[in-house]
Each structure stands twice: as C-alpha cells, then as structure tokens.
C-alpha cells in the first residue's frame, strides 16, 4: 500500500481510564452518543480501548486523549496516549491555569501583594504601634 493508513477507523478519541494495572498499557473507556431508533434520543454507548502508555503516567479516572497508531502494536492495542486532558484530582482550568476542584478554585486567582509568610505578631511589629503616654488632661 503506497499510503499508510492508521490501523483503525478512529484516529483521535477521548475517554476515561478505567484500568492501569497492565504494564505500559492503559484501559480506556470511550463513550459515544448513539441514537435510539425508536425513542430518537441519544444515549452513551461505551467501548473499551487499550492504549500504549510508555511512561505509565495514567491513573484510574484520568480523562485521556488517544491517537491511533499507524500500525497495530499488538492484537488489541491500536492507540497510544497523546495527552492526559484532565488528571484525576488535579484538574487545571484551561483559562486561568489554576488548579480547580468542581466549581471551586484551589489556588487564589489574584496574586496577593502582602507576604503570606509573615505571622500576626510580625504584622503588628510592622505597624509600629507603641503604647504612648496618655495625653495629659488639660
């Protein structure tokens, strides 16, 4: 064949890692929306793919982008890990770049100008409040 074709129809897929117990391989569950012919409603249909993960970076629960390999690596492995989109527990907001948990930001959005290291006593010292002698009642 003059033009090299990928081993499988799906070139790029995104899915959630469900198993990482195999050496250098991640088990990824991919959901696609399939139309029910009678109800005419879309439902998620699952399919598991195996992906080659040479550095074993995946943990169970990561959302992962897979790329089709040009030729089959083994009987079941046709894809490789392109990037980890959302790492479980360490999701990063794409706009601000800060870590996020659900609807809360874990890191403060604006850089605080004051030192966070300085304790309360240190702050009081900086303010230079001294007990001045009470003004003499004139």
């Amino acid at each position: 064949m003059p033009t090299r074709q990928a081993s499988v129809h799906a070139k790029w897929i995104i899915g959630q890692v469900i198993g990482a117990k195999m050496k250098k391989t991640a088990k990824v569950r991919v959901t696609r929306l399939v139309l029910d012919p009678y109800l005419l409603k879309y439902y998620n249909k699952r399919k598991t793919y195996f992906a080659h993960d040479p550095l074993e970076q995946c943990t169970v629960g990561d959302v992962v982008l897979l790329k089709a390999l040009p030729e089959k690596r083994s009987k079941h492995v046709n894809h490789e890990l392109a990037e980890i989109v959302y790492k479980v527990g360490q999701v990063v907001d794409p706009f601000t770049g800060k870590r996020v948990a659900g609807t809360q930001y874990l890191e403060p959005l604006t850089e605080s100008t004051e030192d966070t290291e300085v304790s309360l006593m240190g702050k009081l010292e900086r303010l230079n409040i001294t007990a001045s002698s009470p003004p003499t009642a004139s």
Partner: protein
Amino acid sequence: MPMKGRFPIRRTLEYLQKGEVVFKKSVKIMTVNYNTHGDLSEGARKFVFFNIPQIQYKNPWIQIMMFKNMTPSPFLRFYLDEGEQVLVDVEGKDHKEITNHVKMILGKSDKVLEAEALAKMELSNPANFGPKKYFLRECISEVEGQVPHPGFVPLPKEMTGKYRAKLAAASDE
C-alpha cells in the same frame, strides 16, 4: 396522546434534521464542560439539552463528550486533526449565540452546504435509467404515455417486426 418528556420536540426527526451546524472534516472530537447549577452555565446547559442532538445527528462521526462540574467556568473544546485544539468560552452566553459562534468558527458555511446538496442531487438524476436500487426507472416503457413492454401488452400489428418485414418485402417486389 401527546409525546412524553419535557420538550419532546427534540426527539423528532424533523427537529434533528433542522440542525444548522455541520462541522468541517478536520473536527474529530467535541467536549462540553458545564455545571449543573449556576446562572453562568445556563446557556451551556440549554445548548447541551437542545442543540447537541442536532449536532450529533448532522455529524455522526465525531465523538461528543459531556463533563459536568469539573471546572468553575463552562467551555467547549474541539480536538481537530493533527492535534490541534480549539477552546471556546461559553460563560454567560445564550445557547443560540453558542451555536452561531461554533458554526462560524468550525462549521461548513451555507455556500459549501448548498454546493454539497447540489452535487448529491446531481448524482441521483431522474433522467438516468437502471436497476431499481439506484435509479427511479429501469426502462422508458415504465413511463406513462410511452410504448409499454410487449411482455405485458402485445404491440399493435403495425409495430411488430415481422409485419414490417412483410410490408418491406411486398413493396420491394
């Protein structure tokens, strides 16, 4: 007996076929991150509820995934061929605005769609004859007003080959 569900019109073929967004060939994956509560995600929620079925109907080969309550702000993310990614902020927008924006950046334009529809019509030209599977009619004899097939209706005597041959032979003499 009315249809069941909240907005059952979403589940009609007519509604699905009315979808406007047809993605370009390079778009492979679409990801929607939105929140289940909060006013800012309202547009995104409506988009998922009303427009995602239309988009998936018109683009059966792209993978669409929904993620709920992962980040504080809602957004759409498209993964194109060659690893390219497109991030679309959707916070505070209305679902109609979102569809128009997406159509503008990654959808096929109206002109291209019309040209494709025209090309498809040209393929199925009613002037062509052939097997029933691909064409309308197999033979001109199927058209009303044309000479029917002699297998069904015998031809009038003047049209048969043997009468004409006899006439030709008689006139030659």
